[in-house]
Structure formats: structure tokens, C-alpha cells
């Protein structure tokens, strides 16, 4: 290696940087062949008028350049298993040196694709809890080495585990499983599933049927006029209809749309959530549901990152809400999982107790700064108002949309009232939403990173947003707290980080 600073000198030959199997280069060429072959016609079109020697020389240069780049990439990719971490170096010009501590390697995967098997090779992936896809991918090494690598990583991981004296929480409840209550925590009757289906009103079915009609019409090659005439002839509707008939047709049409939407919701909810049962098996929850496909999922409680409780405008009035958990990925049960699609408050609280969480009343939570309303006004009302004003210049009809602004204004005014937060006794509670409303319950020990963000407008209003990053979630629907006063935001961050790191230490020593 040319850079002395990059590659560390290891005393132990076992820890010296190693390269992938040279056949990796060849495998790369073969795997890349389909796209390369597709490029050939384009190349031919480009050089069609050139002379043969010129083409040959160009091809030779291109091939040797590609070969050199491949060789360099192979040469520059090294991996080493040092005392406490896997070190992977890569990059042609921009060099990257990655360190994955053994403690963070959740598992070592070995994969053998057909081509690799022909060469007796295997791909090794080091799986960590990180969000990225390929955190530590070694393709390809000799199979024997892949297996040796896995054994070594597991051995060293075991050693560091023992050294760091951390109790593996997920093991303790499993051992105590038979004694702790194996009981039903939540179930949905058929009646409730149907009710849940009503709230699952979905326009997907309508979109599908409209799409089907359009594709049929397209296939038969009707233009709209002919189609309309045909419909008019069949149904006996006159070609030129009076206003009353139009209104009637519109009413019938929306009734059909409504019916399809409701039916879709009912069918989807029944197919998915029929016979919903959630049982506590001590340390983990088992969920079975489904009408045709019975699906069973097991949620290990230590993997739960946060809980959300959300309701809609109507569901809240009727006292229903949904409980979901955000789970760290793995074994197909990652992401957001329903624990109770439709539950009463008195059913939610025992469920939270199983998760060892509690919720607090919104009245006990703190409200965000007053400036939140101003910012919501500017963003939610100001921008649509500009759009409508712009459209009104083109056609005055656009002004008909202005009542929407009133609704948005109401929402913006109420947004502050319902955007609340509280950080106390190891839990962060966040509530957001005017019409639909969501409450997040995040154990502080589960917070991955905290950010304080102040945009240009927020700096003028002396506001700050606290971004709370957790594992296993999506990009949307995060427990962020928007528009706190700056001092409050820093105080909240201080509180979250102080408790976050310390609670975890006690968590690990608790045997449960």
C-alpha cells in the first residue's frame, strides 16, 4: 500500500490486511456482462463511420482501461480482522477505511451464487444494526476462508461480549418464559374487524376500477365521445341532459364511489385482520391474524424502539385508537407493526404495561412555542394562498378554492394546541396532529441521535425543532418536536441525552 497512514502495520499475520480472491475481478466482468453487451450496439452506432484499425485501437484502449480500473479496485480493497474490529478499506481515488467493532456484528452471512460456486467462492456479509444495506460486504473469498472468517468473528464477538460484562436482556425473559404469563393481551372480534374496515375506507379500489375501465377503453380503441354515446344509449340518458339529470348522475356516481371505497376497506381489513390475536409469551409477543393467509409474527420486546398511538377525526370521537410499535429490523418483523389496530383506551393501557411503558394525558404535557402557529400559517396557508392567487390570474374560477384556506387556517391555529411533548422518567412523549392525532412514546434509551434544527424562518422567530432519530422507522412520521423556544429546545436535548445514556446502563443490569 502506498499510503503509510492508511494501512496499519499489524504484528499478527492473522490480523494483516487481506485482499479478496482475484477471481472477484473476473466475476465482476461476467456479472456486468449483460449491461456491457447492451452497450455494444450504441458503441457500434457511434463508431459506424470510423476505420477498422481505429475501432480496434479504441476497443483495446477501452478494454485495458476497464481492466486496469477493475484491478485497481481489487487491489485497493482490503480487509483485516484486528484484535477488536473488522477493518475494510476501499475506494479507487476516494479512500474509505471502515471500522466495524465485533460487538456490533449481529451476524455473519455467507452467500454463494451459482457463478461463485463454480469458482468455489462465497460472499460474506457482516450484518450490523446500521441502516445501510451493505455495511460490510466481502465478495468474494474462498469458501473455507469465509467460514473461517465467520468463526473468527463469532469467537471474537463472544470474547468482547464477555469482556464488556453486559447482560443480554433478550436471554433472561426467554429463560423465564414458562413461568411468566402466557396470556391473551388483545384480540379483535369479527364485529370489530368490520368496524375497523369502515375506517379503512380506501380509494384504492376506485383507482383500480377506473384504471381497468380506461385500459379496456384504450384496448377497444374508443374515444371518449363514442364511449359516452354508448353509455347514453344503453342507459337511456339523453345526449343533452338538463341540470337536474346532471346532479342526479353526480349523486349516483359519488354513491358508487363511496360504496366501492367502503367495500374495499371492509375486504382489506377482513383479509388482513380477521381473528386478530396478540398473546404475551414473556419477553415477546405473538401476533396471529388474517382470513385467507394466517400470518404469525413474533415481536421480541427488547427490539421495540418506540410506540405510537394514533386516531382519526371520527375514531377519536368514538373512543378508538390504534397502537403500533416500531421494531428494529430482522427476521422479517421489522418496521412498524400493528399491536392493536382498533382498541379502547382501557385496552391500550394493559398493552403498554406489557411493553413496560406508560402514557400521560395531553394536559400534563407541555405545549410548543407560540411561534409554531405563525410558522404553520406561513407554510400551510401562505403557500396555498399564493398558489390560488397565481391560478386566479389565469382563471377567476380558482377563487372557488379559497374556502379551503379557511380550513387550513383553522388547522394551523389549532396545531399548537395539539402539538405537545414531555420528557420524564425515561420516556419521551410527543403528540401531534389536529384532525388525525398521533402520540409517540419513546424510551429515551432508544434514541439514536438528536438534532436541533433552526431554519432561516425559525431563527427569525427564535424557534428550534428537535429531531429525534430512532432505529427501524421510516422517513415520515417521526417523533420530532417542531418549533420549541430555542432555550426550551436545548433544555429538552440536555434532558434527553442525560437520561438516555444513563437509563440504558441501569436497563442492562436489571434482570427483569
Amino acid at each position, binding site marked *: 500500500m502506498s499510503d503509510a497512514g492508511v494501512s496499519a502495520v499489524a504484528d499478527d499475520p492473522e490480523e494483516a490486511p487481506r485482499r479478496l480472491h482475484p477471481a472477484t475481478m473476473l466475476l465482476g466482468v461476467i456479472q456486468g456482462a449483460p449491461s456491457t453487451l447492451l452497450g455494444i450496439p450504441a458503441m457500434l452506432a457511434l463508431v459506424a463511420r470510423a476505420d477498422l484499425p481505429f475501432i480496434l485501437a479504441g476497443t483495446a484502449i477501452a478494454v485495458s482501461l476497464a481492466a486496469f480500473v477493475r484491478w485497481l479496485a481489487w487491489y485497493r480493497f482490503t480487509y483485516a480482522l484486528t484484535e477488536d474490529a473488522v477493518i475494510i478499506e476501499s475506494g479507487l481515488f476516494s479512500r474509505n*477505511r471502515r471500522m466495524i467493532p465485533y460487538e456490533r456484528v449481529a451476524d455473519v452471512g455467507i452467500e454463494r451464487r451459482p457463478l461463485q460456486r463454480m469458482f468455489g467462492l462465497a460472499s460474506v456479509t457482516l450484518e*450490523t444494526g446500521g441502516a*445501510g444495506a451493505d455495511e460490510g460486504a466481502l465478495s468474494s473469498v474462498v469458501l473455507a476462508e469465509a467460514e473461517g472468517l465467520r468463526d473468527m468473528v463469532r469467537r471474537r464477538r463472544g470474547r468482547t461480549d464477555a469482556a464488556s460484562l453486559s447482560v443480554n436482556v433478550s436471554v433472561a425473559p426467554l429463560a423465564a418464559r414458562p413461568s411468566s404469563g402466557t396470556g391473551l393481551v388483545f384480540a379483535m372480534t369479527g364485529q370489530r374487524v368490520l368496524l375497523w374496515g369502515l375506517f379503512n375506507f380506501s380509494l384504492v379500489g376506485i383507482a383500480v376500477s377506473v384504471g381497468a375501465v380506461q385500459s379496456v377503453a384504450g384496448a377497444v380503441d374508443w374515444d371518449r365521445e363514442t364511449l359516452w354515446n354508448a353509455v347514453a344509449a344503453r342507459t337511456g340518458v339523453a345526449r343533452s341532459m338538463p341540470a337536474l339529470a346532471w346532479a342526479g348522475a353526480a349523486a349516483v356516481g359519488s354513491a358508487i364511489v363511496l360504496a366501492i371505497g367502503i367495500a374495499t376497506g371492509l375486504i382489506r381489513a377482513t383479509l388482513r385482520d380477521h381473528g386478530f390475536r396478540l398473546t404475551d409469551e414473556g419477553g415477546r409477543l405473538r401476533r396471529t391474524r388474517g382470513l385467507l393467509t394466517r400470518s404469525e409474527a413474533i415481536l421480541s420486546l427488547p427490539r421495540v424502539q418506540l410506540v405510537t398511538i394514533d386516531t382519526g377525526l371520527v375514531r377519536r370521537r368514538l373512543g378508538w385508537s390504534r397502537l403500533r410499535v416500531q421494531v428494529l429490523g430482522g427476521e422479517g418483523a421489522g418496521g412498524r407493526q400493528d399491536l392493536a389496530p382498533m382498541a379502547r383506551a382501557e385496552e391500550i393501557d394493559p398493552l403498554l404495561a406489557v411493553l413496560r411503558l406508560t402514557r400521560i394525558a395531553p394536559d400534563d404535557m407541555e405545549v410548543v412555542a407560540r411561534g409554531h402557529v405563525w410558522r404553520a400559517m406561513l407554510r400551510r396557508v401562505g403557500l396555498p394562498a399564493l398558489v390560488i392567487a397565481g391560478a386566479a390570474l389565469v382563471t377567476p374560477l380558482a377563487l372557488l378554492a379559497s374556502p379551503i384556506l379557511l380550513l387550513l387556517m383553522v388547522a394551523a391555529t389549532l396545531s399548537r394546541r395539539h402539538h405537545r411533548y414531555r420528557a420524564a422518567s425515561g420516556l419521551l412523549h410527543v403528540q401531534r396532529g389536529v384532525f388525525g392525532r398521533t402520540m409517540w412514546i419513546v424510551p429515551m434509551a432508544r434514541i439514536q441521535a438528536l438534532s436541533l*434544527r433552526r431554519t432561516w424562518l425559525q431563527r427569525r422567530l427564535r424557534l428550534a425543532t428537535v429531531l429525534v*432519530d430512532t432505529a427501524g422507522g421510516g422517513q415520515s412520521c417521526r417523533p420530532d418536536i417542531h418549533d420549541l423556544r430555542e432555550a426550551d429546545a*436545548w433544555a429538552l436535548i440536555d434532558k434527553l441525552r442525560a437520561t438516555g445514556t444513563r437509563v440504558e446502563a441501569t436497563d442492562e443490569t436489571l434482570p427483569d
Partner: protein
Amino acid sequence: MSLAPIALTPLEPGQRTVMHLHALLPSLLLVIGSVALGLIAQLRLGWVPWPPVLLAGLVAIWMLTVAPRRRWAAWGWALTGDELHVGHGVWARVHTVVPLARVQHIDVAQGPVERAFGVARLVLHTAGTAHATVLLPGVSRQTAEHLRDTIRVHIQAEPW
């Protein structure tokens, strides 16, 4: 960062040069694009070609001179006990706190330009989703490696 609880260390001065150099290619592309647009407007529509070129030129000069300096000045970092603080952003100022115990793995990266000016990028990967990678550019190679080794000490096995 008036109310920030801790003072952040600015980046290496070399990083400012790196940022200026990295702005070279985008601004050059912008100028070339605007010249092409101006030529097309002149040949096809008979318009005067210089207004887009002038506008793009001004933007390019701003991209080359003012913007990198402001971005550089907005960056900062601090290592306090068991957390890494990183601040950045001109338009939206962001101050990120990463508990070191949360770090999954660590990258130290260096591009050719960065190597020439003796700076490196430190990238912390956490298990989070929205800000899963926390980037700290423009620290010297030694600092980056020292930070990495310090952070390494805090990484311990997870309970999951």
C-alpha cells in the same frame, strides 16, 4: 449557535480550500450550460445571449467564493465525554448530538483533493433511520483517527 451548550471546534483551514475546489466543477457546468442556453436562444429565437450567461456567471462566482466560506464557517464539532456534537448548515442550522454508545461503525474517508490538503472525513453510522450517518468533514487525518479510536472505546454490545 449562541445558545449552544458547548463551543464547537471549527474545521481545518485546509477544508475551506477543499470546499472551494469542490465548487469548481458545478459552477463550471453551470457556466457552460448557460452559454449553451444563450447560444441556442440566439440562434433559434434571435434573443440576446448574454443575460442568462451574466446571471449564471454571478451565481457561479457566488458558488465559488462566498458559499463555500459560509458553509465552512457553519461546520463545527466537539467531543464531550460520551457524545459527539456536530454543527452545520447555513440556511437551516443543524446541531446534532450522537451518543457514542449508539455508533454502529465508523468510516474515515479521504478523497484525492482532501488528501492533498491533509483533511479527512469522519462518518459515524448509527442504527437510526433519518440521520443514520453523521458526517464530519474537514478534520485532520490524525484527529479523525484519534476520534475514531476514542469513539471505539465507547462501543459496547447492545442488548438486542
